[in-house]
């Protein structure tokens, strides 16, 4: 067990946890934030994507020891009322089918738009190809990212 202090969705947080435990399970099991999803556990699907200091990161492969003093943002903290431009664009295009992958897709897209406010199709492919959607919503996601870029 280790005591780890970090910032979660803008608030300081101190946890006493196994330093090896991935952030994903600390979020879901310890802190009760279920928006970040488990899909593969090996950084291959993107369902667990959060922002670490603003950068899209797979939380399933990030041990709590590496989270100390970092700024973590999850889907629950992306915006206070769920009106981040990416979230709005997702609703406008009614992107979701089952919806399970979408927290991760949204977090990847929001991080992309921060560094690349006007992404090309190739930029989107580059930033998003780590996020699998079994329902096949990729084409809508692409359109939604373009819309969000205009907001």
């Amino acid at each position: 067990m280790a005591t780890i202090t970090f910032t979660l969705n803008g608030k300081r947080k101190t946890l006493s946890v196994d330093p090896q435990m991935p952030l994903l399970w600390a979020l879901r099991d310890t802190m009760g934030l279920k928006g970040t999803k488990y899909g593969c556990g090996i950084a291959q699907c993107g369902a667990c994507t959060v922002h670490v200091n603003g950068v899209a990161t797979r939380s399933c492969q990030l041990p709590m020891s590496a989270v100390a003093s970092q700024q973590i943002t999850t889907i629950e903290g992306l915006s206070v009322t769920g009106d981040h431009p990416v979230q709005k664009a997702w609703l406008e295009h009614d992107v979701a089918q089952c919806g399970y992958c979408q927290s991760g897709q949204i977090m990847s897209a929001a991080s992309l738009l921060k560094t690349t406010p006007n992404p090309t199709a190739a930029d989107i492919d580059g930033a998003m190809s780590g996020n699998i959607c079994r329902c096949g919503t990729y084409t809508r996601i692409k359109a939604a990212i373009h819309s969000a870029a205009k907001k």
Partner: protein
Amino acid sequence: MKTTKTNLNRRSFLKASVLSGGGMLLSVSWFTTAQGADKLPAEALPLPWVELNGYIQITPDNVIKLMCPNPEFGQNVMTSLPMILAEELDADWKNVVVDMAAHDGVKYGFQFTGGSQSVRAYWKPLRQAGASARHMLREAAAQAWGVPVEEVTTKAGTLSHASGKSATYGEMASKAATITVPKTAKLKTPADFSVVRHSKKNVEGKKVVTGKPLFGIDYEQPGMLLAMVQHPPAFGMKLKSFDASQALKMPGINAIFSFKVFEDGSERGMFETRTFNELVAIVGNSTWEVMNARKKLKVNWEPAPDFKEVLNMRGNKREEFTPGGLESTAAQFAKMDERAKQPATVLRKDGDPETAFKNAAQVLERTYTAPFLAHNTMEPMNCFAHVTADKALFVGPLQAPGLAEETLANRFGLPKDKVEIQMTRMGGGFGRRAYPHYMVEAGVISRQVKAPVKLVYTREDDMTYGIYRPMYTATYRAALDADKNLIGFHVKGGGIPEHPVHAHRFPAGAVANYLAEGWEIPSNITIGAFRAPRSNFNAAAEQSFLDELAELMGKDPFDLRLDLLKQAKANPVGKFNDYDADRYAGVLTLLREKSGWDKPENKAKNRGVAAYFCHNSYAGHVVEMTLRNGQPYVQKTYSAIDCGVVVNPDAARNMVEGAVVDGIGNALYGGLVQKEGVPEQTNFDRYRMIRHNEAPQHIEVHFVQNDIDPTGLGEPPFPPVFGAVANALYKTTGKRSYNQPFGREIDKRI
């Protein structure tokens, strides 16, 4: 009449809901308003719901709650089914809240999400429920105002009379609830639809994009333990012994024990599977602790013998044999090759195919194969269970609550009314969640540890303990006379462990001499529903065979299909043709036009077409392909669909787009390979899924406009994608692909 006060306190709300006999709430969800807002405006609460029937409740201030009977797995039923109710009720969609019903067989029937059945099966009952509630409201207004009921009109949740009198549904709800439910009520004509056929946003959209805990894997209860199961590493193996001494010393671990999923000797019911019937459960406080303890668990496995069991499909009993042994994909293909040469069961025969082939001037013969496919729903299998001596609660992602109830009641020796099942949103299903073994497992574990338990599979568990799309093969033969007329058609298909042949589908009925045959090889690898498992193989094989046939006959691929359909219509061969030749041809004609198939500038493109009928609907696609870094890439697709009335057009388009992407992915990359019973792919590092950069830039979807009652959309657009991809690949590479996944033939690394 039942009027229930509810308030902001969740617990008492839950209780009130149950008492009202109305819809049960999933304890993880709050209402979903039709606009997708998180919750009702606070001033609208507390809400005294008045229940008009099992599907409809109304408050005095005119908030209308519509129950969705079927579980949601991304096909958008939580929006489209309530839309059907709202249409006939004449409700204002803005005032509608939607709630997911718990399982209640008496009220809602089977509540089965699968087989493209939700909208098709509930279309009439929901229209009736909406129309009869509307009638009761009109009757109430007529009595209150002293006017004939015929003179009371409705519009967007308001009742009015020519005299100037008017009232909201909410104001009349209590009185309406005292009116006798009419036996039948007049339904609208499609021309009058104002909700149905008008796109509505996903009612849970806002919750999805804000990460609300909607899914089974998100569900929690106080005091709940977390469980995982260890299954044999290979199909054909079973538990011998285990040593949990080290694992039990790990932090947070509560219990480790072995158990039988189903009791020995029990009959196997519908959707029940015996993939691995004895498992080791690891139960602890949290996911991470259980995962760690699992690594310390020592288990010995041994070969499983052959076994026989009785299958009981709702009263229809037969014995089934499952062989022991460790199977490998390469050997399975060899075995299929051998078996294909032996005689098979004749499934349909028209005319004299033997003579037609003997007299043929030319015979085209091609053989197609496909591997096992894993479902890979993004949310792995999981279920919450709390089972005690006298009752059981299950909460989780499942497709077939009506059938699961029977399985669970039998397994736990409880009357059905003591088995409560709540359905969460599913992170994908594709058929996989119709198999309730994981619910049984959760229940057995809960009963053993005497606590509420959530069972969760890791991705590896999910992929290697599967109910896969079967392995298939089929040989197609066509006989042509000297003038290149098609005089005979023969399909002989087989599979492990079921054959794929739909004997009565196109081109049956269009060819005078026709033979369809099937054979099967039993296996201990479990298989099942997978977004139309047989159809998605057939559509690849048959549609790519027809393409090759068209080329041999010197015909345009659209023309060949349309000519055959013309014959099937004018002069059908045989009596049992499954399809409607006009609807089939209608889809092809629309597709031809919308894709600009005949335009000279498109002729040079690498385009492939396929169209298929399954699960009562018709779908066709044109896909346009290029080579990108030596690998096939589908840039653009066009789809035409006839599924009757389209309830929610934008959501329907989304589902077709998804089927196109999913179809391209599975056709090019999908496949599970076994070596000595061990799946080689265990996670997404080795099981290749289609990704963003491989999805088309442009997907265009068109629906045939007609007033036919909805015929289903979940499956139908998926199978023909495989065929269209195969045909476009031929244009792109100059070589025909006969073995799925096609990508692997081009590039072994795929």
